[in-house]
């Protein structure tokens, strides 16, 4: 079965969507990602959708859901690299993804994750080094 790979980079999970998202794939990603977050204890999830050219309301809702689920599991989600056409489509569909943080590219998305959780992550590290 087709799957979207989830890469682990330190405390963060990296998801790059390179294929056309269909509904089953989106549901699988949602399952896999939540499992991975709880398994790895990741504090941030970065979803790169720069190759995604077509989006519908279901995919939009799934993105919002993934972000909400990740927040429940104590991880921040950043969606990066959204194409203009995709952004316009989502706005026209009335989905502004209010709970999702966004960035222009992977680099600035990573920066965003690090600055927002930076102090907290350092705190954890200090704790572990102290032990």
């Amino acid at each position, binding site marked *: 079965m087709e799957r979207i790979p989830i890469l682990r980079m330190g405390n963060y999970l990296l998801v790059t969507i390179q294929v056309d998202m269909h509904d089953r794939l989106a549901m699988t990603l949602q399952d896999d990602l939540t499992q991975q977050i709880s398994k790895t204890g990741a504090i941030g999830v970065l979803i790169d959708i720069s190759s995604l050219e077509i989006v519908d309301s279901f995919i939009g809702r799934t993105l919002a859901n993934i972000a909400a689920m990740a927040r429940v599991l104590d991880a921040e989600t950043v969606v*990066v690299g959204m194409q203009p056409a995709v952004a316009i489509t989502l706005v026209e569909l009335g989905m502004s993804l209010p709970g999702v943080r*966004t960035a*222009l590219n992977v680099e600035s998305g990573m920066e965003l994750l690090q600055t927002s959780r930076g102090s907290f992550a350092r705190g954890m590290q200090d704790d572990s080094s102290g032990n």
Partner: protein
Amino acid sequence: MSKIAEVLQKHQGPLLDEWMKRLLEGSRRTDLISDKELKAQATELLGSITTSARSGKVSEVNGPEWSATREMLHEIAASRAKQGFTSSETATFVLSMKQPTFSAVRSEFAKDTDAQYQEIWAATTLLDKLALLTTDEFLAAKEQMISRQQEELLELSTPVVKLWDGILALPMIGTLDSARTQVVMESLLQAIVETNSKVAIIDITGVPTVDTLVAQHLIKTITAARLMGADCIISGVRPQIAQTIVHLGINLTDVITKAKLSDAFALALAKSGRAVVKVSEPAARMPGREA
């Protein structure tokens, strides 16, 4: 079967002279068209009408027999639209042919009043149709001009400029409608991707009025930019517009607004960790200006 073609053929010379006389003494625009040009057009048109009428189908101006005449009228109407004639002046060009034609018919069927009536009726129907056709073509040419200008205006009025690394500005000028906002939105989002900009300033100093629709368009653009990972700042909100926005109950609380473009630029610089500082006294004079 109408004999109008034969009448036109037979009386071509005097008819043309009479027509030209009418054209010249009527409301002629010497500033827009020369006598010579007018005569050439009239001669050509009369010849074409005669040829088309000879086919027998005098009243079917939309049929294939009349295609050459239609083409000619199209050209005449298009050139007049460009030259700046009014629609009635253009229609009068064809309609002024009526009287000479009627005179020709009258002299041809001097004794047969029935035939005279019939031919005059045929001629007036034909010329009316041709005049209407000319007016239609004239209006079509005008409309084409307007739509082309609109397109040009659309392209002219939506420039996206780069103020600094990662800071874009979109100075909007003129009234915003749905079509324009779509272009503005697309060009701004495209520019954000191309220049990798984190902040976009939408300056609405040149927008005369902001209504609910315009505000909604602005909010949509800002939301789309946020989805892509860029922040938007609105600048150039004039006092009247601020009043209108509040009176209309438009919620702009989630949007950063600044009074002037310079304020927005300062904020954008601050957001990207930059600042403008004065390094020294403005001693640098322009090179060629030194005494």
